[in-house]
């Protein structure tokens, strides 16, 4: 059975069918890309998987367990982490603190232990800090640890978001346009990082407009247009798919 199965997922906003009866699956340890023109419903699809939106109908099944309809924080606790297309870092917090939030679901100290700084809470704090620093080092941004996250340049903020998502030790990582606004060097860096974490056993679902990135890293591609799945397959097939070419060129003509 597939690791992630999306079955007949639909969601409308008023009269607009943003995601319309979408069905596909992702195998464990695979990098799958979701592409499509603007307004195809890609981000809505991510919001449905991560619980930020409730589906009108359909199922999202992880490892055999349906997760649709659960609160986002519950879905996150099952190892599903995400980044946001329009970056949502925590303001007034350092880069390191942002990434430390990623360790929230892997730690347990409550109000009392935190206020009294119990030995358990202090031990946990050391673990949270060390693990977060390791992730910053892995991504090559440990030099920025003490800076305020939202004051960084755009490209660096994307990497911090990526680091924050990684800190949760996800089994499934949802990346919403990880290369948007990045230069070529940064894009290549992100591509490296995505393949690195896949090697560590993480399954990745990625929305991306940068076609060279998509074709390079993904094992499979699902194409959405106007909320519907119009194609699915390996990158070389998708590149030759006449329907996909029509949708993309048609969009550019308009």
């Amino acid at each position, binding site marked *: 059975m597939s690791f992630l199965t999306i079955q007949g997922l639909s969601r409308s906003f008023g009269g607009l069918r943003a995601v319309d009866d979408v069905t596909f699956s992702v195998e464990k340890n695979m990098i799958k890309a979701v592409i499509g023109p603007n307004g195809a419903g890609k981000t809505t699809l991510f919001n449905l998987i*991560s*619980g*930020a939106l409730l589906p009108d109908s359909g199922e999202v099944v992880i490892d055999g367990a349906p997760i649709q309809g659960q*609160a*986002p*924080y519950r879905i*996150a*606790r099952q190892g599903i*982490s*995400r980044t*946001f297309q329009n970056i*949502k*870092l*925590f*303001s*007034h*917090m350092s880069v390191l*603190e942002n990434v*430390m*939030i*990623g*360790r*929230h*679901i892997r*730690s*347990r*100290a*409550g*109000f009392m232990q*935190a*206020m*009294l*700084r119990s030995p358990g*809470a202090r031990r*946990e*704090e050391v673990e*949270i800090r060390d693990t977060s620093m390791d992730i910053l080092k892995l991504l090559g941004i440990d030099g920025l640890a003490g800076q*305020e996250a939202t004051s960084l340049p755009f490209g660096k903020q994307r990497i911090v978001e990526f680091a*924050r998502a990684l800190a*949760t030790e996800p089994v499934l990582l949802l990346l919403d346009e990880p290369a948007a606004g990045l230069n070529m060097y940064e894009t290549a860096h992100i591509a490296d990082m995505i393949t690195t974490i896949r090697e560590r056993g993480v399954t990745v679902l990625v929305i991306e407009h940068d076609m060279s990135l998509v074709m390079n890293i993904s094992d499979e591609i699902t194409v959405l247009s106007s909320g519907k799945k119009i194609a699915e397959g390996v990158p070389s097939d998708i590149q030759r798919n006449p329907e996909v070419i029509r949708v993309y060129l048609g969009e550019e003509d308009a």
Partner: protein
Amino acid sequence: MIAKKYIPVAALVACIVLFQAVSSLTGREYYLTQLTMAAYYSLVILGLTVLMGFTGQISLGHAAFFAIGGYTSAVLTTLDLSGAAGNPVVKAASAAGFAAASKDAYGAGTLVLSPWAALVAAIVITVIVAFLIGIPILKLKGHYLAMATLGFGIIVYRIVLGASLFGEADGISDLPPFPMPGGLAVCGDPARRVENFYIAAVLVVAGVVLLMNLVDSRVGRALRSIHGSEEAANAMGVDTSRYKLLVFVLSAVFACVAGVFLTHFNGGIGPSEAETMKSVSYVAIVAVGGMANLWGALVMGVVLNYLSLRGYFGSYDEFVFGGILIGIMMFAPEGLLRMEALRGLAGLPARIKTMFGAKNEE
């Protein structure tokens, strides 16, 4: 690292001792009375800072929690139980040391609940009320939340003003002293000014240390992440509704404890403590203190409350706090004593130097 964090705490303790020493040596111990009151009010402000500044949830009803604390203690420690001495509950309470017999002003024997038992009861009631109010209203955001908390504050004010149990417009007076270990007591006796100042100071230091620890912890980061982006916090596995509710309850307990002790210190409480204007002044002080700045809130809490209590603002008191709030919201909505702004200030001499340095080179 830990040592560095506690430098401000050491400075605070030094300030406390210094104030006491100077006022005692110069024969002006009466200043300590208002300073003690200001210290209790700043406990409310510290709790509110964590709710507002760090978690981003406003409350225009915190005077209500202060009043719930103060009035619960006032009612329970002045209610004469001797008529009900045969009641098994009263018997059990007095056997457990929760109630003590004493004599009233006319020499008649009375049996009243011990202030410690009243404190526990006040905290329990506050926690219950904060949960019951918090569950529905914390689903609201921004000015909707502000209006809901305002409504809650007004309801509590009308209740204490209207109910004979709470003494209506007169409030409740003649509270017994609150006994502390070592023969100390929280009370308004001028001979006990110094010890009362220190009792309040110890509570404030304890409060600020607890909240400092909280802010810089797993829980504190979760609270601050809610302020930054509730959606992203949720996506990181933070149960934002639960954390908002718990921090609301925590800040209510701070207000309640302040209410209990200040009421014993003053020997009574009146409905003005529950007034909306009180809540507004707490919010204004959190704002001038820098919103997410415990030290700024503490300094401003003590200074502004002290000035207000000494009557420096005269009959313009409400204008001052209302004006502060309007000014902050217009010109510095993120708070006045922000850490970033202060750091900018610290870099000012260096900037001026480079300005002059550049001039010399030209």
